[in-house]
C-alpha cells in the first residue's frame, strides 16, 4: 500500500466527482454549441457558426461595454464601502459591532430575487415608501427607472447593497486576523492612523481583498436576477448586460445554440479575469 500510486487512489474518486459536477457541464455545453439546436435538441453539426453569429450581432458590443461598466463600478463601490464599514465595525465594541454586522449582512443572506423585489417596492415603486415620502417633501417627478443613467446607477446601487454583507464578513475576518502587536509597534514608532492603515492593515488584507474582488467580479458579471427583476434590461437597452442577453436568447427567443455559445464565452472571460486578478496581485499561497 506504500507504493507511489497509493496517494492517487485516495484522490481519484474526489477528482472524478469534481470533474463530473464542475467540468462535464462545460464540455457538454461546448459540444452543444457546435450544433444547430432545434426544439432543444442538437441536429446538424455547424462547427463554430454559433460563435460567429455572436460576432455578427451589432448589439453585443454595447451589451459587453454595459456589463463592464456595471461590474467595475459595482465591485469598486462594494469594496470601498465594505472596507470602510469593516474598519469601523472592527473598532466598535463586541455588542455594537455584532448588531451593525447583522444589519449589513441581511441583504446578502436573503434571496437575490426577494432582495431586489424588496428594494424595488420600498425605493423605486411609486406607491413605495421612499417615493411616497419624496412626494410629501415636494419631489414629484422622480422616475429612477425611466432614465438610462439613473437606471444603471440604481442597478449598481442594488448590487452594492445586496453584496456588501459578504465583503464585510471576509474583510472583517481579515482584520481580526491581524495581530494587535503590529499596530502597537507602529504607534510606538510614531505612525498615525492613516499610515497604520496604509502601511500595515491594507497590505495584510491583500488576500481577503483579492478573494472579495474575485468573488464580487464573478457574481456581478454573472448576475441575471437583479437586472431582470429591477429593470428588465430597460429602458431600451440601458441596463441590458450579458447575463440578460444569455437569458433572453435561451428562454425568450429559445435560441439555445447562440445562448450556449455566449455563456461559454462568458465562462472563458470569467477564467481569464480570475487569472488576471491573481497575476496582478502577485498572489502567493
Amino acid at each position, binding site marked *: 500500500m506504500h507504493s507511489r500510486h497509493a496517494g492517487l487512489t485516495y484522490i481519484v474518486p474526489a477528482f472524478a466527482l469534481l470533474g463530473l459536477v464542475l467540468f462535464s457541464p462545460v464540455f457538454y455545453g461546448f459540444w452543444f454549441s457546435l450544433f444547430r439546436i*432545434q*426544439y*432543444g*435538441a442538437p441536429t446538424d453539426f455547424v462547427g463554430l457558426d454559433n460563435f460567429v453569429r455572436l460576432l455578427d*450581432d451589432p*448589439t453585443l458590443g454595447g451589451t459587453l461595454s454595459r456589463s463592464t461598466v456595471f461590474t467595475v463600478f459595482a465591485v469598486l463601490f462594494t469594496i470601498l464601502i465594505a472596507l470602510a464599514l469593516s474598519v469601523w465595525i472592527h473598532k466598535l465594541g463586541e455588542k455594537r459591532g455584532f448588531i451593525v454586522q447583522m444589519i449589513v449582512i441581511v441583504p446578502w443572506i436573503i434571496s437575490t430575487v426577494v432582495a431586489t423585489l424588496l428594494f424595488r417596492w420600498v425605493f423605486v*415603486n*411609486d*406607491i413605495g415608501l421612499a417615493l411616497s415620502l419624496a*412626494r410629501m417633501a415636494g419631489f*414629484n417627478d422622480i*422616475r429612477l*427607472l*425611466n*432614465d*438610462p443613467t439613473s*437606471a444603471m446607477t440604481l442597478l449598481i446601487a442594488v448590487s452594492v447593497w445586496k453584496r456588501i454583507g459578504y465583503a464585510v464578513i471576509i474583510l472583517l475576518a481579515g482584520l481580526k486576523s491581524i495581530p494587535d502587536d503590529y499596530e502597537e509597534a507602529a504607534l510606538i514608532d510614531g505612525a498615525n492612523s492613516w499610515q497604520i492603515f496604509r502601511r500595515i492593515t491594507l497590505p495584510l488584507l491583500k488576500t481577503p481583498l483579492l478573494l472579495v474582488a474575485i468573488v464580487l467580479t464573478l457574481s456581478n458579471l454573472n448576475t441575471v436576477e437583479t437586472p*431582470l*427583476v429591477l*429593470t*428588465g*434590461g*430597460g*429602458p*431600451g*437597452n440601458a441596463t441590458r448586460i450579458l447575463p440578460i442577453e444569455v437569458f*433572453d*436568447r*435561451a*428562454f*425568450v*427567443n*429559445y*435560441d*439555445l445554440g447562440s445562448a450556449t455559445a455566449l455563456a461559454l464565452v462568458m465562462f472563458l472571460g470569467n477564467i481569464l479575469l480570475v487569472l488576471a486578478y491573481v497575476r496582478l496581485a502577485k498572489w502567493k499561497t
Partner: protein
Amino acid sequence: MLRRIALSMVLAGTMAAAIPAYAQQTQVRMWTFLNPAGTTPREVALKTIIENFEKANPDIDVVVEPQAWDQMTPKFLAANNAGNAPDVIWVVTDFLGDAIKSGSLASLNDLFIKDWSEEQVADRAGAYWDLTNVDGVQHALFTSRNYISIVYRKDFFDEAGIDPASITTWDEFLKAAEELTVKDSSGQVTRYGFVQGFSENQADPPMMIPYMLGKGAELFNADGTANFASPEGVEALTFQTDLIKKYNVMPEAAVSWTVDDVYEQFASGRAAMILGASVRVSTLQSQLDKDKVGMMLWPGSGDMAHSPAVMAGWAVGVWSKSPVQEQAGKFVDYMLGPDGDKLWVEEGGQSPGLVSTLEGLGDFPQQPGNEYLQVVSEGSAKYGWLAPIDFSIGGYRQSLNKAAQAVVVNGTDPQQALEDAASEFDRANNR
C-alpha cells in the same frame, strides 16, 4: 432490549404492509405554474381537481412540480431531449408550435379522445381546439384560457357616470381615460385612466396589438418576419405612447413596470383601467371586492365593433415519452373534462372551456362579479387573435415594449422604433 426488538418488529411489519400499497400507486408528474398549496382561486381549483381525481383513482398519485411560467415550456423542451420531462405539461402559446413540431406531445386521440362521442368533440370546437390540432392529431387541450383586454374598476366608472359598454371606439376610450384620471389640488395625478406595463420582464401583449389588428394589419408576415412597422403599427404605437406623452392618462413610470406592477397599481386604486388578463380577474376580485372589478372588450375601428384581443392560455398535453401515458391522459381528460371545467369556472374564476359548462352554469355568469365571464365568452368567439404556431414568435411582446420605451424615454420616432424592434425580432429568431 426485548421491548426495542419488539418495537422494531412492529415498525418493520407496518412498513412492509405499507410499501406494497404505496408501490401499487402510479405517480403522474405535472409541471404547471400553479401551486396546489397556494391560495389564489386557480390554485384552490387545481387542488380540488387533483383531490377529486385521486379519490376516484386511488391507484394514481398526481404530483405537481410548480415552475416559473415564463421558463416552463423551454425547460420542458430541454427536458424532453434529456429524457426526464414531466408526464403532464402546460405549454405556453408562444412555444406551442415548437412543442408540437418537436414531437414531445403525445396524441391525445390515441389516449382518450378516441373514446369521445361526436357531441363531446363538438363541445370543445373552436379556435383553441383548432390551434392544437395538426393534421387531425390533437396534441393538447387548452385550459386557463386567457383573454387579454381591459380590466376596469366598476366603482370608479360608476363615480364618473361612464358605461363601459359605451366605449366602442378609440376616441371614446381616450375620453373615458381622461375623465377617469384624477388629480389632487397640487395638480399631481393620483389616479390614472389607463395603465399598462412596458417592461421587457413579464411582458403581456401591449395595447398596440389589438389596435393594429382592429385596423386590419397583420403582426407577422407569412414567412414569420415581423410586420411591426406597418402604417397601422406606427399609428397604434403613436396612440399608445401618446397616452403618456400627450394626454397624461398613463404614467411615464409605466415604461419600467411589469405586469405585476400594473396589477398592484390597480389594486391600490391608482389606475381605473388596465391592460389585464381574464385569468387574473378572480384574484383581483378576491383582493378588492367582487363588485369592483370588471372586464370589457377593446374598442373597435371602422366596421369592427371591437378590436381582436390577444388570446392566450395553456395547452395541456401528455409527454410523448412518458412511461405512464395512460394514467397521465386519464388525468388530463378529467382535469379538462366536464367536472374539471366546472371547477375551473366556479372555484378558479376561469372562463369555461366547454360549451356545455357555460350552458350548465345557469345564471352563474350573470351573477354580480361574474359578468366578465360573458365578456370573455363573447370576445373569444368573435374578437380574438391567437398567435400563429407555424413559426416561433418568442420575444415579440418584449420587442414591441422596447419600441414603446424608445419612443417615451428617448423620443425616438415611432416608425424608427418599430423598424428597430422588427429587425431585432427577426435577428433574434434567425429570420
